[in-house]
């Protein structure tokens, strides 16, 4: 996106701050200045710190699970503890890492910058979202610390509402409260995108990341209340015996699954759409070409958001759902593949005959395309009524959704974090280490999860701490891969922290990228721009530049 002033290598005088200032300096350096901030950039960083904590705890649970599964016998932890471990892992990763990862961290930071705005529409509401998120997170951690829940992240009834002897209500309350944070973030983003675009920034000049955030926000607003209601009903049944889901009380357990997946399947798209948005930024930038099929990519985000609400029944093909409903849900599930494929084809076409720069963010984007495609295509296996009967409840499912969640979203998150790191911190990370970490992560990820496709197809069920001996080789491979993956995550954590003090200072636009966020200084001033930018051209007007200038400005 190019403004009225022609693009140059240095920040444009009209948009750059008049004196050297940034949001670290301007807001003050006290703890209170962070905890009471209404600056979207600082709130984005607060989210980043929070999700790292939840991620580490959830990853620790995953590590214990993988160590347990090295041997076929359940010899490290008891089955009860194992149940709690995968519940901790799932609950924290889904609600306290993946859902806020790209929208609340990167989205919060760059959305107003991309729109040429000073902040989001409701800055105080934005801070409230972070507090609600952490209040929910602390309740979940309280449940973990005082015994944990053992229901799995899905809280299926009547086990959760009647039989489980664990902290189900506390855990569900944590998710319930954090959900309100999600709803408020979604509302804030929708209104910001509608009302706060810079002059000339029409809908079809918006970066595709904004389109994906918009679609994600719609899902957050429309789906999350249903989760809140469902968890509340489950808790009421558990506390007061209100008969909603337990057949003994006149309820219906499958109703819980309908309501839960009405939220949780669209939530899968909350966890992937923003990642697709990030990739849509990275591919044209590092291919030095305008994005291919802008309108198709933009509308495919909206299509995924809408279609994502019509497919939840594919989680219940073997849960006594009627065959006719199964047929309908199966067909609708296939339809989601269409907009997903449109995106993949358009990204590929963008790269075709482009001037490719294999920078770290681009390596993550490439990884995303491959891993997401595998995850997406194996989703079609699961949407098929007959195949699903065979692989339901096996490691095939685990592998499938980790290819989407980790191979897709986490990869995109890492790509986005590297891409915007110079803007966020004003420092460059070490490029070679970045590339190495991306490679390690890709290898570790595939070694962890590809064997799970095989072992799942052979029939190993999920959620057991012991298994048949013939499955051991796949589990050993998987655990070995998880160790490599762990190093792949640790490395960026170390060099990012290192770069804060020792990294080279970043110029305003180290990637020579288009987009308004690159036209202010790095890190940006508190109110982003000293003068409101004016947009006069289409987005992604890239042309090839020499490599050394691309990376180091």
């Amino acid at each position: 996106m190019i403004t009225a002033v022609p693009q140059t290598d240095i920040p444009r005088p009209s948009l750059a701050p008049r004196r050297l200032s940034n949001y670290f300096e301007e807001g003050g350096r006290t703890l209170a200045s962070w905890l009471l901030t209404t600056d979207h950039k600082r709130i984005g960083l607060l989210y980043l710190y929070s999700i790292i904590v939840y991620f580490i705890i959830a990853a620790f649970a995953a590590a214990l699970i993988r160590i347990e599964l090295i041997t076929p016998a359940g010899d490290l932890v008891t089955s009860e503890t194992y149940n709690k471990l995968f519940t901790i892992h799932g609950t924290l990763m889904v609600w306290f890492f993946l859902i806020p990862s790209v929208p609340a961290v990167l989205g919060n930071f760059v959305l107003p910058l991309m729109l040429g705005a000073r902040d989001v529409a409701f800055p105080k509401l934005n801070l409230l979202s972070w507090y609600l998120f952490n209040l929910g997170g602390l309740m979940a951690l309280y449940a973990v610390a005082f015994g944990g829940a053992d229901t799995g992240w899905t809280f299926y009834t009547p086990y959760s509402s009647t039989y489980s002897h664990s902290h189900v209500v506390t855990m569900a309350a944590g998710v319930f409260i954090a959900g309100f944070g999600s709803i408020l973030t979604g509302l804030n983003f929708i209104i910001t995108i509608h009302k706060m675009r810079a002059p000339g920034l029409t809908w079809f000049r918006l970066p595709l990341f904004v389109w994906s955030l918009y679609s994600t926000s719609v899902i957050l607003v429309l789906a999350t209340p249903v989760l809140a209601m469902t968890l509340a009903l489950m808790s009421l049944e558990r506390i007061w015996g209100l008969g909603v889901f337990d057949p003994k009380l006149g309820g219906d357990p499958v109703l819980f699954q309908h309501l839960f997946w009405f939220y949780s399947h669209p939530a899968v798209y909350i966890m992937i759409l923003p990642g697709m948005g990030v990739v849509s930024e990275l591919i044209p930038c590092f291919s030095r070409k305008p994005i291919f099929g802008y309108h198709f990519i933009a509308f495919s985000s909206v299509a995924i958001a809408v279609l994502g609400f019509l497919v939840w029944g594919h989680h219940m093909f073997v849960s006594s759902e009627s065959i006719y409903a199964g047929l309908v849900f199966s067909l609708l599930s296939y339809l989601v593949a269409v907009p997903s494929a449109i995106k993949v084809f358009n990204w590929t076409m963008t790269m075709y005959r482009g001037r490719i720069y294999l920078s770290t963010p681009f390596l993550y984007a490439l990884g995303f395309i491959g891993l997401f495609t595998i995850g997406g295509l194996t989703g079609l296996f699961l949407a098929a009524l007959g195949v699903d009967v065979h692989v339901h409840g096996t490691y095939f499912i685990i592998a499938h959704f980790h290819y989407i969640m980790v191979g897709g979203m986490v990869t995109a998150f890492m790509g986005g974090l590297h891409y915007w790191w110079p803007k966020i911190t004003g420092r460059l990370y070490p490029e070679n280490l970045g590339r190495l970490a991306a490679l390690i992560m890709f290898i570790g990820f595939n070694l962890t999860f590809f064997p799970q496709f095989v072992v799942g197809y052979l029939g190993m069920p999920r959620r057991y701490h012991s298994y048949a001996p013939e499955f051991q080789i796949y589990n050993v491979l998987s655990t070995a891969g998880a160790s490599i993956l762990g190093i792949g995550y640790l490395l960026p954590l170390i060099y990012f922290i290192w770069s804060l003090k020792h990294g080279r200072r970043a110029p305003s636009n180290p990637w020579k990228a288009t987009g308004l966020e690159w036209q202010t200084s790095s890190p940006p001033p508190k109110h982003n721009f000293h003068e409101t930018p004016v947009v006069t051209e289409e987005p992604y007007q890239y042309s090839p530049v020499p490599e050394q200038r691309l990376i180091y400005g």
Partner: protein
Amino acid sequence: MIIPTKIYFRVWLALLLLLVLTWGLAQVDMGRFNPIAALTIAVLKMLLVILFFMHVRYNKPITWIFVAAGFVWLAIMIDLTLSDYLTRNAVPPTLHHTWQHGAWPAPSKEGP
């Protein structure tokens, strides 16, 4: 836009009247019309709250679209959930038999 207080007062009175009506109708057994009456009153109350208390009546068409979207999504949830419940017994009874000993059991007239 500032809404006159008397509007809020009238809406509040209307809501109270509808509440009394709900209670009154609950005293009369109308058979299958019981839920219809109760739900009709509930929808009326809801509309009053959305249109006046939530200011939707005075807002731009885009607000109407967002409000409508909420109801469309609610309809999706109810409709597709019912697509399961209303067709549970629609499968021919012979298909309830499970695969045993390498062959489907012969169809029986009495069903499972």
